[in-house]
C-alpha cells in the first residue's frame, strides 16, 4: 500500500518538477517521463501481490476536511490499475522518446502525470469525498491535456465539451454520493455497503451512477464529448484517455454496484440495451467519419458498449442466480477492458505517428503509407485485427468469453433468457462485423493502395528507438492472448469480489474450468494459426517465388492509365453501410450528381458530425439560451425599478407572512 502511495507521490512530484524545468526541455522530459515510468513500475508490485496471491493490504487513513478517508487496494482496484499503470508507463516512454526527437511533440508532463496520479488515487479511494476529489482532478487534468493545443479553436471546443460533459456527470455523482452518505451517515464505502437501502433508493443510486459514470465511458447519448476530445488531443494523450480514463468510468460503476446489495433486473436490461445501442451507433458513426483519430475514438465508444452489455448480462445473471454466466460475463468484461486498453493504446500511438509523419488526419488523402512505414503499418495491422475482435489476438478471447456467457444464457429455458441471449449474440455479431468493416476501411485506406495525395514529401518510418513502446504493447497483446486461460482464474476472483455482496457467489460457483478448457483450445488454435500463416508465407516467398514479378500496375479491367485518384476512397468504401444507417448517422453530403455522357467536373464529399450532438444537445443548449437570455432584461440599469424590486420584495414578504400570522 505504501508503495502505491509512494508511486502516486513520485508521479505527481515528477510532473511538478517537469513543469518547473520546462524551459530546459530535455530535463523536464527526463523528469516527467522518468517519474511516470518508475512510479508505475513501483506501483505494479502491490497490485500484483493483491491480484495473484490475493492478499489484503493494510488500510490507510487520510484526514480530510469532511472526515477520515480510507485508502484501500482490493482486487477490483488492483485490476483496474493494470491498464492505468501499463499505459502510463508505455505512453510516457513513447512521449519521452518522441519529445527527444522533435520539438513539437507533446510536453504537458504536469497534467499528464497529474492525470495518472489522479487515476491511481481514484482507484485506492474507499471514501466518497476522496473519490470525488480524485475524480474531478482527473477530469481537470484531462481537460488541460485536451486543450493543450489551445491555439486551435477546435481543440478548445473539444476541451469545452469535455469539461462541461464531465461536470454534468460529476453533478450526478455528487447527488449520488451525497445521497449514499446521507443515508449511511458516513462517506466511507464500507459504511455504504453496510447501510440498508430501499429498492427505490438503490435504483435511484444505480441510475445516477450509470449517468454520472456513463458520461466518462461514453454511454450512448453521453458520448458526444469523446470523439472530439480524442481527435484533437495529442496521440499520447488520447491513448491514455481512451485506454485508461474511460475505464475509470467502469470502475466507478462497478464500485457502486458492489455497494448496492439489492440489485434489480431492470438495471441489467437497461445496461444491455444501452450497450447494444452504443456499440451499433458508434460503429455506424465510425464508418462515416473522415478523420482517422475520430474513427479510432468511436471504436472506443463501441468497445465501451460491448463492455456495458457484458456487465448488464452479468447483472441479469446474478438476478437469475446463474453464477457461471455472471462470472463469465463479468470476467469477459474485465478482460475486454484490459485488452482494449492495450490495443487502443497501440492504435492511438500508431495513428499519432501517421498524423505526425504526413501531417493530416484526413482519410481521404491517405493511402500507400505501408510501403514507406512498414513497422507502423504492421503495428497498426495487428492492433486493428486485435481490436476488431478477430482471432488470433486478445480481444477475440474476451469477446469469446462474453459469447460463451451468451450461449449459456440461451440454454436457460425461459423467454427472457432467450431474449437476452439474442441481444448479446446477434448484437455482438453485428457490432463485430461492423468493427471488421471499420478497421478494414481504416487500415486499408490509410496504409494500403497508392497515396491519394498528389504530392507527398518523402516520408520515412519511425526512429528505431520509438519502436520500443510498440514492441512492448505487441508483447502484451501476445501475452494476454496466450495466458488468457489462466488469466481468467484471476479475473473470476475479481468478479467474485465484485459480486460478493449480492448473491454471495463463492469463487467455486463460478466454475472457472468451464471457461478454462475452451480457452485453452482457442489459444491453441490461435497460436497454430499464427505459426502456420507465418510459416506458409515465409516458405512461399523463400522457395516458391521463383519467377514472380511485382513491377506491373494494378489490373484495372483494361483501363490503360490507372491513377491513384481512381481508388476507392474512405467515404465511398463506407457509403453502402452508412446509407443503411443514415437515419441515425445523418451524414452531410456535399456534391452534385454526375450526369450526361461527357460529364463536367464534379465533386462529392460526405462527413458526419455526431448526430446526437447536432440533433439533441445543441438544440437543448440553444433552448436554455433562448429561455434565459430575455431574463437579462431584469438588469436594465434603472435605479427606480431597482428600488421597486426591494419595495415589492418587502411588501410581498410582509403581506404573505403577516397575513399568515
Amino acid at each position, binding site marked *: 500500500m505504501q508503495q502505491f502511495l509512494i508511486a502516486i507521490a513520485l508521479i505527481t512530484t515528477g510532473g511538478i518538477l517537469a513543469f518547473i524545468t520546462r524551459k530546459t526541455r530535455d530535463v523536464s522530459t527526463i523528469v516527467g517521463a522518468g517519474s511516470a515510468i518508475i512510479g508505475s513500475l513501483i506501483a505494479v508490485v502491490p497490485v500484483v501481490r493483491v491480484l495473484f496471491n490475493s492478499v489484503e493490504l493494510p488500510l490507510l487513513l487520510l*484526514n*480530510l*476536511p*469532511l472526515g477520515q478517508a480510507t485508502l484501500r487496494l482490493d482486487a477490483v482496484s488492483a485490476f483496474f490499475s493494470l491498464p492505468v499503470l501499463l499505459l502510463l508507463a508505455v505512453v510516457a516512454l513513447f512521449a519521452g522518446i518522441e519529445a527527444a526527437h522533435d520539438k513539437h511533440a507533446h510536453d504537458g508532463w504536469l497534467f499528464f502525470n497529474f492525470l495518472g496520479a489522479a487515476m491511481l488515487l481514484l482507484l485506492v479511494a474507499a471514501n466518497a*469525498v476522496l473519490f*470525488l*476529489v480524485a475524480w*474531478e*482532478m482527473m477530469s*481537470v487534468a484531462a481537460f488541460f491535456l485536451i*486543450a493543450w493545443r*489551445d*491555439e486551435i*479553436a477546435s481543440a*478548445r471546443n473539444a*476541451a*469545452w465539451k469535455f*469539461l*462541461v460533459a464531465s*461536470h*454534468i456527470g460529476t*453533478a450526478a455523482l*455528487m*447527488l449520488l*454520493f*451525497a*445521497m449514499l*452518505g*446521507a443515508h449511511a451517515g458516513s462517506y466511507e464505502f464500507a459504511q455504504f455497503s453496510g447501510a440498508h437501502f430501499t429498492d427505490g433508493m438503490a435504483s435511484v443510486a444505480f441510475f445516477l451512477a450509470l449517468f454520472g459514470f456513463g458520461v466518462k465511458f461514453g454511454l450512448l447519448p453521453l458520448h458526444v464529448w469523446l470523439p472530439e476530445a480524442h481527435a484533437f488531443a495529442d496521440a499520447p494523450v488520447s491513448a491514455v484517455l481512451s485506454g485508461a480514463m474511460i475505464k475509470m468510468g467502469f470502475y466507478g460503476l462497478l464500485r457502486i454496484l458492489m455497494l448496492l446489495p439489492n440489485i434489480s433486473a431492470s438495471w441489467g436490461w437497461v445496461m444491455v440495451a444501452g450497450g447494444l445501442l452504443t456499440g451499433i451507433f458508434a460503429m455506424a458513426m465510425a464508418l462515416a467519419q473522415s478523420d482517422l483519430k475520430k474513427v479510432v475514438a468511436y471504436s472506443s465508444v463501441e468497445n465501451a458498449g460491448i463492455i456495458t452489455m457484458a456487465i448488464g448480462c452479468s447483472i441479469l445473471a446474478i438476478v437469475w442466480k446463474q453464477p457461471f454466466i455472471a462470472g463469465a460475463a463479468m470476467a469477459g468484461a474485465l478482460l475486454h477492458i484490459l485488452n482494449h486498453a492495450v490495443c487502443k493504446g497501440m492504435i492511438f500511438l500508431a495513428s499519432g505517428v501517421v498524423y505526425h509523419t504526413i501531417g493530416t488526419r484526413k482519410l481521404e488523402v491517405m493511402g500507400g503509407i505501408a510501403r514507406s512505414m512498414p513497422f507502423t503499418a504492421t503495428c497498426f495491422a495487428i492492433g486493428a485485427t486485435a481490436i476488431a475482435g478477430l482471432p488470433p489476438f486478445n480481444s477475440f478471447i474476451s469477446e469469446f468469453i462474453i459469447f460463451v456467457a451468451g450461449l449459456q444464457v440461451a440454454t436457460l429455458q425461459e423467454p427472457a433468457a432467450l431474449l437476452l441471449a439474442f441481444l448479446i449474440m446477434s448484437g455482438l455479431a453485428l457490432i463485430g462485423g461492423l468493427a471488421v468493416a471499420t478497421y478494414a476501411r481504416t487500415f486499408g485506406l490509410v496504409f494500403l493502395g497508392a497515396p491519394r495525395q498528389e504530392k507527398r514529401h518523402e516520408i520515412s518510418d519511425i526512429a528505431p528507438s520509438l519502436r520500443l513502446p510498440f514492441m512492448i504493447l505487441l508483447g502484451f497483446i501476445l501475452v494476454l492472448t496466450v495466458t488468457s486461460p489462466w488469466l481468467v482464474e484471476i479475473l473470476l476472483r475479481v468478479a467474485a469480489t465484485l459480486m460478493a455482496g449480492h448473491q454471495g457467489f463463492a469463487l467455486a460457483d463460478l466454475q472457472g474450468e468451464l471457461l478454462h478448457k475452451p480457452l485453452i483450445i482457442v489459444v491453441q488454435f490461435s497460436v497454430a494459426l499464427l505459426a502456420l500463416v507465418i510459416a506458409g508465407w515465409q516458405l512461399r516467398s523463400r522457395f516458391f517465388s521463383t519467377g514472380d514479378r511485382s513491377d506491373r500496375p494494378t489490373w484495372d479491367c483494361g483501363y490503360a492509365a490507372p491513377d491513384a485518384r481512381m481508388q476507392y476512397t474512405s467515404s465511398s468504401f463506407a457509403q453502402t453501410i452508412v446509407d443503411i444507417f443514415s437515419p441515425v448517422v445523418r451524414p452531410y453530403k456535399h456534391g452534385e450528381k454526375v450526369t450526361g455522357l461527357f460529364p463536367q467536373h464534379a465533386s462529392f464529399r460526405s462527413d458526419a458530425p455526431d448526430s446526437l450532438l447536432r440533433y439533441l444537445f445543441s438544440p437543448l443548449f440553444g433552448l*436554455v*439560451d433562448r429561455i*434565459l*437570455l430575455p*431574463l*437579462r432584461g*431584469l*438588469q436594465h*440599469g434603472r*435605479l427606480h425599478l*431597482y*428600488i421597486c*424590486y*426591494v419595495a415589492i*420584495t*418587502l411588501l410581498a*414578504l*410582509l403581506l404573505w*407572512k*403577516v397575513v399568515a*400570522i
Partner: protein
Amino acid sequence: MITAYALIILPVITGVISLFISSERVRRNLLMIVAFIHLFMSILLCNGSAGELNGVWLGLDALSRLFLVITSLLFTGSAIYSMVYLDKHPHFNGPAIAGLRMPGNSNAIFAACMQLFLAAMSLSILSMHFGLQWIGIEATTLASTPLIYYHRNRRSLEAAWKYMILCSVGIALALMGVFFLAMTTSSHVQQFTPAGLSLFSGYLKVEWLKVAFIFFLVGYGTKMGLAPMHTWLPDAHSEAPSPVSAMLSGALLNCAFLGILRIYQVCVAVPGAAVFANELLIIFGLLSLAVSGIFILHQPDYKRMLAYSSVEHMGILALGVGLGGSAIAAAMLHAAGHSLVKASLFLLSGNVLAVYASKKVEDVKALLKAMPLTGALWLAGFFAITGTPPFTTFNSEFAIVRVALQSGSWKVATLYLLFLLLVFIGMLTIFMHMCFGKKGEQEVDGTAGESFWQILPPVVFLTTALLLGLYLPDFVRNTIDGAALLLGGKAL
C-alpha cells in the same frame, strides 16, 4: 477588550490623518502599517487567549472571530496590492464643490476611505449590540462609496450613486427591523445583543421577531446582494478599483451576512421562528443562485461576471444556513473560501485590466501566453470558485448537498446543483475564451500586470484555499464549528 476597541479606533485615526498627509509614500506606508497591525491584532484577538467576551456593545464569539480574520486578511492583501495599483492610476485633485473643498487628492481620499472602511467593517463585526451593528454596516456604505467613485468618471459615479441609494434604503429598512426587534424584547432584557436576547427567548414575541427578521433579511440582504435586491452589486463591483472590489465582495458582503446571522441567532432560540427563517433563507438562496446563473451566462464583462458569482455564493451561504445542521458549518467554511478566492480573482482582474485596458471578455485572449502567472492563477481561481476539488469550496458545496438530501429535500438539492452547473458552464466559456487561444493581433505587454506585489496576494489566498481544501487545521475547524453551534447547527 482594549484590542477590540483599538481595532476600530486605530484605522479611524490613521484614516483621518492620512487625509492630510501630502506625501504619497508616507500615506501608503501608513496604510500598509495599519493593515499589518490590524491583522496582527485580530489574530492576537482570535487565537482564543482573549476568550469569549460578551460586552453590552462589543463582543467576540466564533462568528466574529471568523469574519474578523477574513476581513483583516483581505484588507492586508488589498493594501499590498493597491501599493502598485495606485501608481498605475493618475490621481487628481478633488474638485471644489460649492466651497466644500475635498481635502487632499483622490489617492488621499482612497487611502483614508480604505482605512475608514476597515474600521467600519471591524465595528460591524465586533459589535454585539444590534443598534451598534447597524451603525457599523451603514458606516461601511458611507466609507466605501467614495472608493467606488475613485475613478471619477460617469460610469463610476453612476455605480456609486446606485450603490449609495440602494444600500441606504436597504439599511434604513434594516433599522426598522432593529426597532421591531427591540419591540419584541420585553422589559427585563438587559442586553440588546443576540446572546442577551437568546437568554430570554421565552419572553420574545414570535410574530414581532418574524417581522423583524423580514426587515433584516430585506435590509441587510440588499447589502449582502441577495437577489432580487442585488442589483447594485454588479455595477459597484465592476466600476470600483480592483482592490476595492476585492474588499467589497470578500469582506463587506460577509459583514452584511453577519447582520442577518445575528438575528438568525435569536430566531434559533425562539421555537417558531427558526423554521420561518430557514424557509426564507432557502428561498432567497435559490433565487440568488438562479439569478447569478442567468447573468453569468454570456456575460460580456468579466468583472461583472465575478460580481454575479458573488451573488451566487451569497446564495449558497443563505441556502446553507437555511438548511441548518452541519450545512451551517459548511456555509461558514464556504464564506471563508469564497472570500479568499473571490478576492484573489478580483485582484487578478485588476492585473488583466491594467494590461488589456478593457473589461470586455472578447478583448482578452491568450492570457496564459500574454501574462503566464496571472493567467495560471486566473484559471486556478476559476476552478476554485466553481467548487472544483481539491479547493475548499468543493467541500462546503458538497456538504450542503448532503445535508439537503439528509433532510430529504431532493428538489432543493437538484435545483442547487442545476444552478451551480449553469454558473459553471457560463464561467467556463468566459474563462476559456480569456485564457486560451492565439495571442491577439494587438501586442500586449504582459509584464505590466505581473509585478511581485500584484501576484503575491492572490497566490497566498489561493494557496490557502487549496490547503484548507486538503486539510482543516483544528483552530479553523473549531472556529467554524463554534460559529455553527452559535447558529444552532452541527459541527462539520
